């Protein structure tokens, strides 16, 4: 038997403190967790969506780039395919245009109308846009095509949410 015996009183108080401490921690931890949760939340890779397009392979001719993302319609989440027309402009900068016609929302195509080469053409009502997305006056659309903000990551092109083009 050792000299400094633990008295019954001491033993009980140690045990109670220990157990009480665990219980308090058990109650407090989730609360703290809730409080700091927004900070811990992983930043959703901003809103940029990866595309299969390699940045090094973008040319001066607008190319169609399809990418997939999740879209929520009320309670129903579905995978949607988005499209962008991507090319390099005169300065060698990447331009990614939304293919949605600003008139009534059809999908425009590059260089498909024989009478108007090198233009974006809307098959629905003959809307025309020049290569930089500006609407050609005299055709139904009243605004230039939307522009996607873009990012380069690991050699691939990432696209954000299409925004109306700023007035030049």
């Amino acid at each position, binding site marked *: 038997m050792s000299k400094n015996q633990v008295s019954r009183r001491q033993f009980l108080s140690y045990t109670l403190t220990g157990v009480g401490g665990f219980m308090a921690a058990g109650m407090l931890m989730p609360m703290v967790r809730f409080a700091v949760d927004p900070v811990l939340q992983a930043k959703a890779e901003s809103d940029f969506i990866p595309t299969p397009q390699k940045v090094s392979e973008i040319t001066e001719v607008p190319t169609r780039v399809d990418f997939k993302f999740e879209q929520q319609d009320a309670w129903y989440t579905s995978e949607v395919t988005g499209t962008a027309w991507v090319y390099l402009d005169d300065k060698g900068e990447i331009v990614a245009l939304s293919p949605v016609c600003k*008139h*009534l929302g*059809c*999908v425009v195509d590059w260089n498909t109308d024989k009478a108007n080469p090198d233009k974006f053409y809307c*098959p*629905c*009502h003959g809307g025309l846009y020049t290569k930089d997305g500006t609407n050609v006056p005299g055709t139904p659309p009243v605004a230039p095509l939307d522009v996607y903000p873009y990012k380069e990551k690991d050699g691939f092109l990432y696209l954000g949410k299409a925004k109306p083009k700023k007035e030049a």
Partner: protein
Amino acid sequence: MKWNPQDIDMFLQSKEYVDTAVLPLLPVAISKDTKQAASMTEFISLLSMQLERQFRGRLLLLPGYSYIKTESIDKLLGDLKVWERELLENGFKHVLFLTSDSNWKAVENQLEGELIWMPSLPLVHMDEKNRNSLLEDQVKQLMNLFLQKWQSAD
């Protein structure tokens, strides 16, 4: 444009630009050929949704006309003519029926609108990627058909 309030608002504002109505014909059958009817319905629904995405500014995609496949074709034809009349009398120049059900082929020439029959593809056994590319090909062909129709009318 789809048959929902937002799109219909747009439709009412720009009626003069929307001259094409698409009505998917969706068969339902419980007693026999149930699965076949279901896959026809799925195929045509997917196809018409894709089509609407491409041409949303010029066509109105109506909610499908679903019918009991075992009903006599004359009765169904009568119903379809009601749709057709409603659409043609209210400003639509082109009315297209989209179907996989070959029964309609027999009565095609009694319709004023155009019946487009597409053989339904077995989408069930495909993974999503193949399925999408396959649908896309089909939609491309359909789009050409629409473009030709519009060009000959303009």
